[in-house]
């Protein structure tokens, strides 16, 4: 059984030195200024600041900047095949690189969905020439995402599928999910679950609560998510399977995951920056570009529970659920608009601005959770320890910028942060040992 494989385009390996950069890698236990010497795409040495004697390397004056292990997003929508007017592998991975990511996992709810080995092979082929960061592909759990028959999970794994997900839709039938969990023993591959009871969600377009009552919009109750998490955690526990719960949004969901973890279920989960930073109060603006997504923005109590879950480790990682949409799908009344917002380019800056600077979460914790999304899918996580492949997010934590003022790397502009002023900016990203992104205005000071 071959493990799932991530792909990116081949290119020139980075040979450079990040001079006097503050290195912060909580997992490797590094938090100090260093000269980071990168040769042939690997971290050759962490030298005392100013001491590395490497005249043959490109010098980057990084004094005052931070180097983090580059981020990993286990939940993005690259929209290919079929919806390239929203995004594709090239634009989506460029967007990831601009956000400090070295790897992403693309969801399978494309048009048609990624359900056959040939689909996965074609996408990997495409990523080998188009992707600026490592891209892995999930395949659907059920054929065509119809929720009825399983896909050929073992063949899909052989073709390189990293895991399985019907994201966008729940696996409605408990029996079908049970069969998938049984089959997982044969082929491996984490099953990522979009947890939602379609009947309870009904025609809902936002969180059910005082704001939906005021706006006259159909609500999606929190229990639509948490009841399905409880069901699927019970199934995973019974079958000894391995599941990853996507985009937690509600306090009841955090509790359900916490109970499952305590009971020994192999379950991991993620939360998105927009759910960690915003509440349903934003929907009063009726702006679908920034505030319509599924699961919906919920109450302040829910947001606080997500923050607490991220802090105590109930929530394993941050995932953006980057969901690009074309303008005409959003320039309509709220109820008719497509669900989803983009988030790759702003994830770190938003969490830094909204949670780190006000003192809610430690910088180190946010950095750790931003790259922790690799682990549930058995992908090696980025590290700044010497000898590691160069996967680095170089950030200026004091830079202030307005989201969208210089456009987006993504093909779509439905960013939940559009127009926001953020503090903290990714100025350079190294992914897979290559320079994947440089901020255009980031001058490369040559140290004397």
């Amino acid at each position, binding site marked *: 059984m071959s493990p799932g494989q991530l792909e990116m385009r081949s290119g020139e390996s980075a040979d450079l030195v990040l001079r006097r950069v503050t290195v912060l890698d909580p997992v490797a236990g590094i938090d100090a200024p260093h000269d980071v010497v990168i040769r042939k795409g690997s971290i050759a040495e962490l030298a005392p600041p100013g001491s590395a004697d490497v005249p043959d390397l490109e010098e980057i004056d990084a004094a005052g900047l931070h180097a983090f292990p580059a981020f990993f997003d286990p939940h993005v929508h690259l929209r290919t095949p079929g919806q390239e007017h929203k995004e594709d592998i090239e634009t989506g991975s460029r967007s990831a690189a601009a956000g400090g990511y070295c790897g992403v996992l693309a969801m399978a709810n494309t048009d048609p969905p990624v359900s056959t080995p040939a689909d996965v092979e074609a996408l990997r082929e495409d990523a080998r020439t188009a992707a600026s960061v490592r891209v892995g592909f999930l395949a659907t759990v059920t054929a065509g995402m119809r929720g009825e028959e399983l896909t050929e999970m073992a063949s899909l794994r052989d073709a390189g599928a990293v895991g399985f997900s019907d994201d966008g839709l729940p696996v409605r039938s408990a029996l079908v999910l049970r069969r998938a969990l049984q089959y997982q023993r044969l082929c491996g591959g984490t099953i990522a679950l979009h947890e939602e009871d379609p009947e309870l969600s009904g025609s809902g377009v936002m969180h059910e*609560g005082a704001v939906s009552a005021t706006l*006259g919009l159909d*609500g999606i109750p929190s229990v639509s998510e948490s009841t399905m998490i409880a069901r699927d955690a019970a199934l995973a526990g019974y079958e000894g399977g391995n599941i990853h719960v996507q985009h937690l949004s509600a306090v009841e969901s955090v509790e359900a995951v916490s109970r499952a973890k305590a009971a020994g279920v192999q379950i991991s989960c993620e939360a998105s920056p927009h759910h960690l930073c915003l509440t349903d109060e934003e929907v009063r603006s009726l702006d679908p570009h920034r505030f319509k997504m599924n699961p919906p923005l919920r109450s302040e109590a829910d947001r606080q529970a997500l923050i607490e879950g991220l802090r105590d480790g109930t929530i394993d990682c941050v995932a953006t659920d980057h969901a690009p949409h074309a303008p*005409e799908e959003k*320039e*309509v*009344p709220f*109820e008719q608009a497509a669900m989803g917002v983009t988030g790759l380019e702003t994830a770190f800056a938003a969490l830094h601005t909204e949670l780190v600077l006000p003192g809610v979460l430690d910088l180190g914790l946010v950095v750790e959770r931003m790259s922790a999304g690799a682990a549930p899918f058995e992908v090696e996580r980025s590290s700044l320890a010497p000898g590691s492949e160069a996967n680095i997010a170089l950030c200026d934590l004091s830079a202030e910028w307005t989201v969208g003022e210089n456009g987006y790397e993504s093909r779509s502009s439905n960013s939940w942060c559009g127009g926001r002023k953020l503090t903290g900016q990714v100025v350079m990203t190294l992914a897979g040992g290559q320079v994947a992104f440089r901020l255009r205005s980031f001058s490369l000071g040559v140290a004397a």
Partner: protein
Amino acid sequence: MKHLLSIEQLSKAEIEAILDRAESFSEVGRRDIKKVPTLRGRTIVTLFYESSTRTSSSFELAAKRLSADLVSVKAAGSSVDKGESLKDTVATLSAYEPAAIVIRHPHAGAAQLVAQWVDAAVVNAGDGKHEHPSQALLDVYTLRRQLDSLEGKKIWIVGDVLHSRVARSNLIAFRAMGAELTVCGPPALIPRGLEELGCEVEYSLDRLGEADVVYALRLQRERMKESFIPSIREYAAHFQIDSRRLGRRQLLMHPGPVNRGVELSGEVIDSPQSLIAEQVASGLVVRMAILYELLAASDDESAPAAGDDTKRPTAIGQPA
């Protein structure tokens, strides 16, 4: 006031100003020539994506009585049927340089979106289950004529609150005028969290006797198919306003159209306590007042003290 998108945007004083204006227009309706030249030469577009009798006809007649040129567009039979987006339809109609666009749409926030796209004043004539501000204004107007003031009056809103934009706008408007609100209906038809709009929630009519005004809402017969209620009969048994439940001193209102024998019994509709016909009559003058406030009242403020006749407001009641 540039647009009328929600009742929430209006203060008590602004609501009263519109209603005072409506009082002055009620005199026009008693004349032989029921018309004033206020909006002569200006264009008003009504754009209705949902069926409507009262709202569309009263806005249209209001525009005509103010001497505006009127373009009425109904979605059925228009280019909307051919898949034209709201944005493109509005752009097309904007080519006529309308002074105002009156829009009804099945989805919340449609009027607000249109307001972002056009220079015209936009009037929300109902957006999804969100708001229906002109209905709320005409209901306050109707009640004010009966009760002088709504301050401290107890108003019960009874029925399918969940699907009612009228309930939402009226809750806000009645509350702004000082009334005490109770909503009552089957639990599945009362939205969760509604209390935060500042009202009491009751699931039975037992205390209906406390109400000064009973405002019944339309119950769509399809609701039982979605299991909001078990049956129309069960609904009527518990929530129908009939002569047994309606006290002699209580006033009865309904936004129409009524499902006779469902939310209201026939005899209360035709009783002297019923203000349903007055509500319709109020609709015309209140909608004249809304159009006046949006299109002519701002000229009052910007107009020079004397001289420039083109900018001077036309005195109310001056026949054309």
